[in-house]
């Protein structure tokens, strides 16, 4: 880059006069944004005009605004950066609601810029008008309607700040069309935008000391880590590994936290919760000290609250004070950022004269090994039919040594993916946990691939979910994003069917997918590549073909139709009342949930 160019660029981010539409683009540049996902329409045309006249921001044209949102989420989760989406007023904005709520529940930093009808028409039921800030108020961390062009730059910078700091989340900036045309003064990013917003980062040292004292006298400890470790960043994962190494504590994680601690690590128990491993859930149930690091005691984790780890003292590290004591009362809350708190914690542990009780820990580990030997993820292989678990074992074996990112849709395949794909690093696993949005995985994979053009990006999909945002295949083809959609096709909404079997007397109301499309032809129709595999013996070659093709792929993996996902904690039950695969006979499944439990789900 020449000196002049550098100078002119640094000049560009100074205070100067420009139109609102120019400000949007300038603010994105000043916030370090390089890629955005969007869809045009009348109320954002001035912004699209500015995008046309520059080349610093790469705009990915999706095929549906929901796709833009999930793509931005995948982009954000796989990079640690803020995801950005741009939509028009009215239907553009309402289509953005699902990904906004998805990002809110999973703490994903997202900035949505929406067009709005001109200020003077707001409230008049103008063409493509909707009350965007009203509709999105409960599904954003914060939102703004900008009525004066001179506020626009400040608000945009504030939006990025709010999205990425504290507990990350989605924000929305609604920009009326006249504000996009109007001229005003652009202001560069500020350091501290508003006094009412000040997330706590550093943990209270007294609380941390208390936590450390409790940990070092524990006889049956466990670390329960979550998405907050991923949110906190790479340093947090590093420190988590160090903490485990230092204490030799067993560690489990939620769905959202997979990869923060490596699945190959010797202290790893696998995922916990409703579809978690036996060893993870039993360890949680019987522990005497639980260290929750960036997880939120979600109901998929706790099962019946009164039966949740009844005899433990609980430590909870979380950046959001409202997460503390929300579902489960804890003994030692530590409010702060995971990386900051772990740093203090590790320092104090190293300095302490008390060391973990080795004898007690030895006994604890031998108990855990007994639970492990129960092999709760076992399943019966079949020579003729591909078992979904087998498909994922093979997918893992053939892709683990590559630079791979995994996204998922929602259903049984998602849980099997969590159980059978093993993550060594954070930010490699993108899934819709809190909202459980079918249709998340395909556009999320697109977003991940845009951020990592040379990596292998796979959406582990279900036959029903994948149809919810299938249209983004077209975007993937346009941008030469070679995403691989690995469909575990059981011709059922398997997860729904599993619950119908458990709760509704095996009456499979509308959970069978009649008239599935021919996924191979569909792939070809989009200009991608289609693969079908029906026999276990053909699977490895087919997966290899999928990896080798430099195009978006729809892989129709025909799996056993009626397989169910175990282990499972039936609703109303506690961690030590799991349903294990070898016990899950048809009868056991039908009677697993008693009448009382049935009312709970």
């Amino acid at each position, binding site marked *: 880059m020449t000196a002049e160019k550098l100078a002119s660029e640094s000049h560009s981010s100074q205070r100067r006069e420009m139109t609102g539409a120019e400000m949007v683009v300038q603010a994105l540049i000043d916030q370090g944004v390089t890629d955005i996902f969007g869809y045009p329409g009348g109320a954002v045309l001035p912004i699209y005009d500015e995008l046309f006249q520059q080349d610093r921001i790469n705009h990915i044209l999706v095929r549906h605004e929901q796709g833009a949102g999930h793509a931005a989420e995948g982009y954000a989760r796989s990079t640690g950066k803020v995801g950005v989406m741009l939509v028009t007023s009215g239907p553009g904005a309402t289509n953005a609601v699902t990904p906004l709520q998805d990002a809110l529940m999973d703490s994903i930093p997202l900035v949505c810029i929406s067009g709005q009808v001109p200020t003077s028409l707001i409230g008049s039921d103008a063409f493509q008008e909707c009350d965007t*800030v*009203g509709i999105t*108020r*409960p599904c954003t*961390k*914060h939102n703004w*309607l900008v009525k004066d062009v001179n506020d626009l730059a400040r608000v945009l910078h504030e939006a990025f700040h*709010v999205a990425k700091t504290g507990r990350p989340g989605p924000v929305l900036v609604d920009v009326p069309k006249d504000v996009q045309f109007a001229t005003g003064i652009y202001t560069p990013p500020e350091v501290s935008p*508003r*006094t*009412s*917003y000040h997330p706590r980062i550093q943990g209270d040292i007294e609380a941390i000391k208390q936590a450390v004292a409790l940990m070092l006298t524990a006889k049956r400890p466990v670390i329960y880590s979550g998405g907050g470790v991923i949110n906190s960043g790479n340093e947090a994962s590093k420190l988590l590994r160090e903490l485990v190494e230092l204490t030799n504590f067993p560690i489990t994680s939620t769905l959202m936290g997979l990869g923060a601690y490596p699945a190959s690590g010797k202290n790893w128990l696998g995922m916990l919760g409703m579809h978690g491993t036996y060893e993870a859930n039993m360890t949680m149930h019987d522990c005497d000290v639980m260290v929750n690091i960036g997880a939120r*005691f*979600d*109901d998929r984790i*706790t*099962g*019946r*609250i*009164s039966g949740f780890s009844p005899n433990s003292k609980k430590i909870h590290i979380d950046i*959001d*004070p*409202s997460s*503390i*004591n*929300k*579902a489960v*009362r804890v003994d030692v809350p530590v409010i702060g950022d995971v990386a900051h708190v772990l740093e203090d914690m590790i320092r104090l542990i190293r300095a302490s004269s008390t060391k973990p009780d080795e004898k007690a820990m030895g006994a604890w580990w031998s108990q855990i090994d007994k639970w492990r030997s129960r092999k709760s993820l076992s399943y019966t292989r079949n020579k003729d039919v591909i078992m979904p678990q087998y498909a994922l074992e093979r997918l893992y074996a053939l892709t683990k040594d590559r630079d791979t990112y995994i996204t998922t849709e929602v259903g049984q395949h998602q849980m099997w993916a969590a159980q059978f794909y093993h993550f060594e690093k954070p930010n490699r696993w993108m899934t819709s946990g809190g909202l459980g949005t079918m249709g998340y995985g395909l556009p999320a994979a697109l977003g991940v691939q845009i951020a990592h053009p040379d990596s292998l990006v796979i959406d582990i999909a279900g036959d029903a979910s994948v149809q919810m945002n299938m249209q983004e295949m077209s975007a993937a083809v346009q941008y030469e994003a070679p995403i691989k959609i690995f469909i575990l096709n059981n011709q059922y909404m398997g997860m729904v069917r599993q619950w119908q079997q458990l709760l509704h007397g095996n009456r499979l109301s509308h959970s069978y997918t009649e008239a599935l499309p021919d996924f191979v032809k569909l792939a070809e129709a989009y200009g991608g590549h289609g693969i079908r595999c029906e026999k276990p013996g053909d699977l490895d070659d087919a997966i290899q073909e999928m990896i080798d093709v430099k195009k978006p792929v729809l892989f129709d993996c025909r799996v056993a139709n009626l397989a169910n996902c175990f282990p499972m904690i039936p*609703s*109303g039950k506690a961690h030590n009342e799991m349903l294990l695969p070898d016990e899950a006979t048809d009868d056991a499944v039908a009677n697993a949930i008693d009448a009382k439990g049935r009312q*709970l*789900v």
Partner: protein
Amino acid sequence: MNAQNLASGSAYFIAKETELPVTTVLSVLVDNEPGVLARVIGLFSGRGYNIESLTVSETEHEQHLSRITIVTRGTPHILDQIRHQLERIVPVHRVVDLSVRADELGQSGPIQRELALVKVAGLGEHRNEALRLADAFHAKVSDATTEHFIFEITGKGSKIDQFIAIMKPLGLVEICRTGVAAMNRGPRGM
């Protein structure tokens, strides 16, 4: 009660609530900007919390700060959640549970005052009785004809409730109440 349980976390594994609900007064200091009240109210309705009384007005003009006073009811656990959830709202500066604060200060409770306008219409003995009772309650006459009075009364909610109950048989026409304004006793601010 049930709604409160649901709001406490899981919609699926509903635990029996063992704590008893209490009433409390929250003071919420917010940036006075469009939509801020909707955010606060939306939080209550969205999460199934109760609002028994709500007042709002700008209190620090130069800093554009408004003070919202909310009387709400719930178990101590839920009230804690409400406070933390309110603090998450970006334009919210501070949330103080005035009742808890009063306890900490060893006081019986925050000062709570409400103003009500009470219209009473009637003739003869009812009219005289209304005026006599209004006087006993230190209510002011803000408007009157030979057929009606509008009384203006200030005080604790319970005093106003009582006044209204007494006026009912004397020709009560309509009532307008401001909702509770409240602060803690003593020299310190919130």
